[in-house]
């Protein structure tokens, strides 16, 4: 016990540093994912045929290949064609593009599950297609997609762990360093697992609160 507490005292400061990096990675990647996923999802449903196809290819590539390979391609592969990123930039970009692909698909599903009648009614009062999407369809779709996006956010907290393989000092990266330094891999990885668990727990509570706020009165069954 004494030994364990000593170890804890030694590794926690580094792990907290790593936690900050992990949170940063998750937040920026998710934001980037929204910035990509929102227009991509809209384009996939309402865009011209060629755009739908382009977005379809993007989604297939990023959903169809392992995240780790995507990360290696961006960080080690792209320099071969003259595009070089810093570790952090490569991490943000890969995670953002990956998340964007998933978020686009989630949004597509939500957009398509908003009833046809909503668009018809919006057009019937003289809204253009764009106005109808903006004022009527999207606000409903975003509410529908929220629970799925919450899952994505929670998953992202853990996906970020792959970046230690390009030596980004996130929570997982720090864990690896500490494990090597104190020769106590099992104990340290268990501590790190608890860190992730707490992060996910907090994220879960916050996101549930957001979902509850966004619920449409009387429609609880559908939002859940």
């Amino acid at each position, binding site marked *: 016990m004494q030994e364990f507490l000593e170890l804890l005292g030694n590794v926690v400061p580094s792990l907290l540093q790593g936690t900050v990096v992990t949170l940063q990675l998750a937040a920026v990647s998710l934001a980037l994912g929204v910035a990509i996923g929102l227009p991509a999802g809209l384009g996939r449903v309402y865009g011209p045929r060629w755009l739908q196809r382009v977005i379809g290819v993007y989604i297939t590539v990023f959903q169809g290949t392992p995240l780790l390979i995507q990360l290696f391609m961006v960080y080690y592969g792209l320099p071969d064609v003259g595009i070089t990123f810093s570790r952090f930039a490569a991490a943000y970009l890969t995670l953002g593009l990956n998340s964007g692909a998933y978020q686009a698909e989630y949004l597509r599903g939500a957009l398509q599950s908003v009833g046809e*009648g*909503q668009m*018809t009614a919006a057009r*019937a*009062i*003289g809204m253009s297609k764009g106005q109808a999407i903006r004022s009527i369809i999207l*606000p409903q779709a975003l509410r529908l997609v929220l629970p799925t996006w919450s899952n994505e956010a929670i998953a992202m907290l853990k996906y970020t762990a792959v970046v230690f393989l390009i030596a980004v000092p996130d929570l997982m990266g720090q864990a690896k360093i500490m494990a090597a330094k104190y020769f106590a891999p099992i104990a340290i990885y268990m501590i790190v697992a608890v860190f992730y668990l707490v992060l996910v727990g907090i994220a879960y509570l916050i996101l549930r609160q957001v979902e509850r706020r966004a619920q449409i*009165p009387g429609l609880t069954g559908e939002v859940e």
Partner: protein
Amino acid sequence: MTTDPILRLENVHKSFGETHVLKGVSLTIQPRDVVVLVGPSGTGKSTLLRCINLLSPPTQGKIWLEEQEITAPGVNQDKVRQRIGMVFQDFNLFTHLTALGNVMVGLTRVRKMNKKEAYDLAMLELDRVGLVDRADHYPAQLSGGQKQRVAIARALGMDPHVMLFDEPTSALDPELTGEVLEVMQQLGQEGMTMMVVSHEMGFARRVASRIVFMEGGYIVEEGPPDQMFDAPRNERTREFLNKISSFEDNGQGE
């Protein structure tokens, strides 16, 4: 009686792929007319309404709204739809907006009113359908009859010149149809021009200035309610109206 027609259809056809739904419909509607469209299901009554407000434009033929030919190329369809109110069978209220929000959204987004103007007018329209006290309720918190009245208020807010009703009471429980029909009757009395697809024969008798009987994509016969109910010229009209009228008398829409 030589006012200019508010709506004029000339040989309107509509096909969906191979299916020829409307096969040449011509119809003239005067201001303040209340036209009730009846006919067996699948004869193109709803399609005709959707052609008129260009939600699904005719494949052939011409439609004039007042002096404008709205089927002409280059017409701004969104502008046309503002002048034609539409009420749907399944209400289609915007689920994420309150009753008030449903009426206001068209006023602020389409008619570009400011919040205050839009609020005042929306409350006025809700008052017209007797739902001021439900202004802050969401669609899921309203009964079917209330939903349909909000939908009517939403359409009225756009200040339409013509109102189209596509089976407005078909999705309602029998005890809720009355409140909707009452609002429609009152609208008719105020002079609103209306086209109503409905099987409510009591309403047709009381409120319609004209009944139009459609079958198989054509208008078979049209005339004032008395003539259509009591002395139709066409055998099919007689059969059909007899059937649904007697049905209504003893079954009360069961």
